[in-house]
């Protein structure tokens, strides 16, 4: 049986597993089941779902590429992401889990700052999720196009729409079940690829260690302090409590499950990025020196693995992409209905459920279209990062802990933070190398302070559950 046949067979088997899981979890009776899984998700599945969502193409294929070209440079810098996830788990996620009548970040803003801030949070949430879905869909399209030879627009549309079909009926329960399957798959195959590289290595391990040190030292020497600061800040703050992660905190069965899920996921990222980076370093032992860095991941797999396992490796990449896209689409649809559609008046539970399902499909179509016009993958991710943290982070974290909040503090902080960050990044092009996130956060804090001292006290009208 030829390689192509085995690859195709692997992809078909994997897609059938996904469809089966979507089928058995497809029935949702209420919006709470669709959006937060009735708040019954245990620690293990919160962990797996978070890890599967965090590990996208950048945190797998991308890190092998980085390991190949710059050793452990990015590994050490992006550990900031793990620190962020662990801190969120220890400090913020358990607090978020106490907002038992909230389904989205926007709902939390409504409780803390009122409807206008709720709407703004909803617009940012939906926009961010569409942006991320488009960027990831485009990368998935490139990967699948390389395997099948189909045009990019067809492959990116196929992946994104398939993911939407998996999740539109079962909501977050289907997402988490599929995340679990995807986690299992890629957490076996990619480590097996590294172990194969280690045990087939013809030279001594010291040779690989020496190369790793040399690549890392050269990599750090080629970077400025501002570049290092920019990367650390982007990964430390850029994705903090973005909608898919906040949804996991809200879906956890209790505060302990929320806390442990985030902490375990943060620890797992340390392990995972180490595996992918080391695979890139080992690639020097096997693949030709003129290999393009972007081709290293598949190149080493093709070189080392049996065709059946190589097919499984391609499926693992598809799993990495799908697990991130599923969570983003589900979060976007829930935020659209809860934070934008319902803002003028409460919809019935069944209407919210119906509109969320429809929104999943519509948002997927929008993401496919946006993907065709999106900038490069890294540029797209950096734009998404520079909007989320400056607009949401400060009012959200203060709102979680401070009781006497002001409506104006919420919306002024969001508007100041987002506009400053966008202008700093896109028009001024980050003068002196100061990251847009930092400037945006400073503006957000200033806006919050002005709004707090200028505005009147916000009275929370959602009295079902106290803070």
């Amino acid at each position, binding site marked *: 049986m030829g390689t192509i046949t085995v690859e195709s067979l692997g992809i078909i088997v994997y897609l059938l597993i996904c469809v089966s899981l979507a089928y058995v979890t497809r029935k949702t009776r209420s919006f709470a089941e669709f959006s937060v899984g009735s708040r019954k998700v245990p620690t293990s599945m919160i962990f797996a779902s978070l890890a599967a969502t965090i590990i996208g193409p950048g945190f797998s294929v991308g890190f092998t590429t980085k390991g190949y070209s710059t050793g452990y440079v990015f590994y050490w810098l992006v550990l900031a992401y793990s620190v962020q996830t662990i801190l969120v788990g220890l400090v913020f996620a358990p607090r978020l889990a106490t907002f038992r009548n909230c389904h989205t970040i926007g709902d939390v803003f409504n409780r803390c700052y009122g409807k206008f801030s709720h709407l703004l949070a909803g617009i940012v949430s939906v926009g961010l999720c569409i942006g991320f879905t488009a960027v990831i869909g485009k990368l998935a399209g490139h990967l699948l196009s390389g395997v099948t030879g189909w045009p990019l627009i067809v492959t990116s549309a196929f992946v994104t729409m398939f993911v939407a079909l998996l999740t539109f009926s079962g909501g977050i329960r289907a997402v988490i079940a599929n995340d679990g399957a995807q986690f299992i798959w890629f957490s076996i195959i990619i*480590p097996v690829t590294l172990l194969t590289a280690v045990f087939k290595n013809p030279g001594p391990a010291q040779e690989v260690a020496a190369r790793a040190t040399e690549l890392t030292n050269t990599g750090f020497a080629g970077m400025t302090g501002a570049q290092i600061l920019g990367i650390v800040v982007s990964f430390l703050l850029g994705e903090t409590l973005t909608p898919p992660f906040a949804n996991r905190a809200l879906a956890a069965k209790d505060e302990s499950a929320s806390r442990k899920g985030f902490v375990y996921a943060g620890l797992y990222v340390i392990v995972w990025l180490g595996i992918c980076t080391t695979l890139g370093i080992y690639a020097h032992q096997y693949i030709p020196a003129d290999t393009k860095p972007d081709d290293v991941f598949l190149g080493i797999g093709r070189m080392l693995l049996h065709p059946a396992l190589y097919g499984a490796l391609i499926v693992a990449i598809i799993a990495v992409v799908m697990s991130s896209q599923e969570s983003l689409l589900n979060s976007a649809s829930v935020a659209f209905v809860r934070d934008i559609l319902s803002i003028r008046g409460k919809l019935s539970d069944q209407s919210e459920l119906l509109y969320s399902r429809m929104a999943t499909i519509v948002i997927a179509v929008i993401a496919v279209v946006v993907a065709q016009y999106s900038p490069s993958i890294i540029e797209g991710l950096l734009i998404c990062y520079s909007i989320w943290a400056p607009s949401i982070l400060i009012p959200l974290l203060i709102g979680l802990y401070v009781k006497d909040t002001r409506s104006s503090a919420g919306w002024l902080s969001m508007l100041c933070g987002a506009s400053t960050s966008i202008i700093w990044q896109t028009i001024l092009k980050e003068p002196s190398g100061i990251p847009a996130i930092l400037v945006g956060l400073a503006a957000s804090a200033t806006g919050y302070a002005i709004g707090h001292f200028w505005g009147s006290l916000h009275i929370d009208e959602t009295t079902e559950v106290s803070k």
Partner: protein
Amino acid sequence: MIYIMSVIFPLIAMGCSIWIFIAMISYVSEIRRDIKSHK
């Protein structure tokens, strides 16, 4: 360090994979029970 990254880390990842395999069976069974109990 290379030994930890190239041998220990893959084994930890595969161990987590086995843990989640068991947890996922339990989670999906729970969902099925929940769906059936409301029929």
